């Protein structure tokens, strides 16, 4: 086989069914090899950034490693934002990067670029192919590294001469690979788990703080079992939404900068925090010096560098969350002990008091004469109309927080979002990949007019592959979150937060061969939204929402978890 054929066969053997990419000179041998087979479907995007985001989302939805293929130079540099996005959220991804022939490397050849160098800070690892016969082994290693331990993106740089059809090699794919320098811990230390169980069972005011690691580690069932067994209050990070059902009685909501009042109060007043697959991100902790002053912290994480990086863990447990939680549950059951019932009852009484403050309330008057459409109500209506069952993707900004707070996610992998890097433009490619992976599900991209324009060219890809996603544009004709900060922190000076030249999104969608619907009236919003969701094909739903609305709650910068704005002018 040629190097290109070795590559394709290795991908087939790794179970790859979809590749997201864009052709170019350096990868044409590979495209020719892809053309001659039918096991792997290639999805042609309009910009390589979208290919990266689609591969990332494909992984977020299916749990399998996503694959990107791009040509050398500008092709592959266009994927860097997507690689960084996947890196920050620990998403397994393999990027096949075309490179100029090895004889030209270092000569500033046409479309030459040191992709391994450029991507180094945002990959888990990278490989350069130096011998075509090694390609299957390198692919095996790349997938192994991407998907094990703390998952992440891996770049494989492939010089064009490594895939030359004239050079033939035998196919050898190792059954498994063992790297002496890479042996991730999976099972947590039993002694540490015992200490954690003892501490947890002695807690008076416990809280379970779970993050994206629970979703990535497929440990949602174990988390639910532990939470239910001990009747613990549960809060999720943005990345962890769905790991514990949002409609569950023990769920106190998302925590952090735009977390619920009850979640942040529960964290601040807790005596024991069980952090599972969460990394104490600065969007969660606010000021680390004022973070949860009374709490003893148990921290379960696959990545030792995440433990005690910003907040010191009293009981660190390094391991995959799934086996660690399984062992915790088994140990708790073996002891037959439960938390102090009276203390726990008092704790829940206190939490229910906090819940009464209704931090998520908003002015939902539907009178069109007085009010514009409230964005929160649009998301709540979407939740109702989709029966809470849709896969929701979102971009970054105010609409993202409305989507996180007002749609209730009951299942993991139902909510796809760029939590770590905060990448505008992911929403549409995420929705496209989700629809490809789960064609039977309703997929809605909740976006804003700023974010959607960052990858709007992918409407063309949607037409080519018939991807009937629904795009719900919460259109406030401005960069809403930027404007909110300018309102709150810069005395209302709206430097460059206006989008003064917005397209007619309905016509734009139509020009790409899709349908578009414009919604402006709060009184009829629900029925119009319902009709739009019931239409066949891709529908661009452009909802004109209240321009002055802010996202609340919001933590007061530099303070503790509990210092929050609950509405304009109202502090905790």
């Amino acid at each position, binding site marked *: 086989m040629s190097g290109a054929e070795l590559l394709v066969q290795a991908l087939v053997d790794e179970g790859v069914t979809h590749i997201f990419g864009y052709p170019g000179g350096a990868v044409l041998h590979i495209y020719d090899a892809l053309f001659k087979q039918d096991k792997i479907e290639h999805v042609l995007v309009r910009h390589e950034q979208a290919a990266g985001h689609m591969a990332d989302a494909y992984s977020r939805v299916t749990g399998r490693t996503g694959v990107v293929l791009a040509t050398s130079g500008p092709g592959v540099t266009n994927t860097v934002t997507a690689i960084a996005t996947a890196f920050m959220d620990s998403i397994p991804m393999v990027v096949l990067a075309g490179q100029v022939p090895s004889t030209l490397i270092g000569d500033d050849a046409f479309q030459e670029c040191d992709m391994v*160098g450029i991507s180094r800070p945002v990959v*888990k690892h*990278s490989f*350069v192919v130096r011998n075509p016969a090694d390609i299957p082994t390198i692919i095996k290693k790349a997938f192994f590294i991407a998907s094990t331990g703390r998952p992440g993106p891996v770049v494989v740089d492939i010089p064009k001469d490594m895939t030359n059809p004239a050079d033939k090699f035998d196919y050898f794919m190792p059954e498994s690979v063992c790297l*002496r*320098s*890479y042996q991730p811990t999976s099972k947590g230390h039993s002694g540490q788990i015992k200490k954690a169980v003892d501490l947890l069972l002695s807690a008076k005011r416990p809280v379970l703080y779970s993050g994206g690691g629970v979703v990535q580690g497929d440990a949602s069932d174990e988390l639910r079992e532990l939470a239910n067994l001990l009747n613990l209050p549960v809060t999720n990070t943005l990345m962890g939404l769905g790991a514990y059902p949002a409609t569950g009685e023990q769920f106190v909501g998302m925590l952090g900068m735009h977390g619920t009042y009850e979640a942040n109060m529960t964290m601040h007043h807790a005596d024991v925090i069980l952090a599972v697959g969460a990394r104490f991100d600065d969007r969660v902790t606010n000021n680390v010096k004022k973070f949860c002053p009374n709490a003893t912290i148990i921290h379960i994480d696959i990545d*030792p560098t995440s433990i005690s990086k910003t907040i010191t863990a009293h009981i660190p447990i390094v391991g995959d969350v799934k086996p660690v939680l399984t062992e915790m549950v088994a140990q708790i059951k073996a002891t037959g002990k439960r938390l102090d019932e009276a203390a726990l009852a008092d704790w829940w009484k206190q939490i229910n008091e906090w819940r009464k403050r209704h931090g998520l309330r908003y002015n939902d008057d539907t009178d069109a004469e007085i009010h514009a459409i409230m964005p929160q109500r649009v998301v709540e209506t979407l939740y109702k109309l989709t029966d809470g069952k849709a896969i929701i993707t979102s971009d970054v900004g105010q609409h993202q927080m409305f989507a996180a707070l007002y749609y209730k996610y009951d299942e993991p992998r139902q909510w796809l979002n760029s939590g770590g890097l905060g990448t505008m433009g992911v929403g549409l490619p995420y929705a496209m990949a989700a629809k490809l992976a789960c064609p039977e599900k309703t997929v809605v991209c909740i976006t804003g007019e700023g974010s959607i324009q960052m990858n709007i060219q992918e409407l063309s890809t949607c037409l080519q592959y018939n991807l009937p996603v629904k795009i719900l544009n919460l259109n406030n004709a401005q960069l809403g979150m930027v404007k909110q900060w300018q309102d709150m922190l810069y005395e209302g000076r709206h430097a460059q937060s206006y989008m003064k030249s917005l397209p007619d999104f309905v016509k734009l969608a139509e020009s790409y061969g899709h349908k578009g619907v414009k919604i402006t009236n709060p009184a009829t919003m629900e029925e119009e939204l319902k009709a739009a969701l019931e239409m066949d094909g891709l529908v661009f739903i452009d909802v004109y929402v209240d321009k002055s609305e802010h996202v609340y709650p919001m933590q007061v910068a530099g303070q503790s978890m509990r210092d929050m704005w609950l509405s304009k002018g109202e502090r905790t």
Partner: protein
Amino acid sequence: MAQVQKHLISVLMENEAGSLSRVVGLFSQRGYNIDTLNVAATEDPTLSRLTLTTITTADKIEQITKQLHKLIEVVKVQNLSEVSNGSQIERELMLIKVRATGAHREEVYRTADIFRAQIVDVSPNLYTILITGDAGKLDGFIEVIGRDKILEVVRSGVIGIARGERTLSL
């Protein structure tokens, strides 16, 4: 303010193109400073040993060693200052070019002798001296010679090894 001190870190890693840049990249990317850095293959040509010194706090050094260990090609990491309680064997090599004329020529010669340094090149006006030792000894030599007499200095940076039975190997 947390106390800062010098740490000597040894890293055993795969001898592959790109390994060193990943280690160095990790330091710059995360805002840690490297004071000295040394790397060469070991007796096993597939392995390189890297030694670096950095001045930082105990918290930071823990994070640095964990981050180093996370790199895929890093096989082992050891904080020599920690495992040896500061009694590790450290050596640095320095080549120093010193003006040596008149009465001063004899004095430089004697000083080199006292420090057990070697004169490795001679010209009518200068000596080039090779000296090894820990960093403190090398600093001392520079002080004694006198900065105004020094024309050029090149130092290798520190290498180190633990005392006694303890080894860093596979």
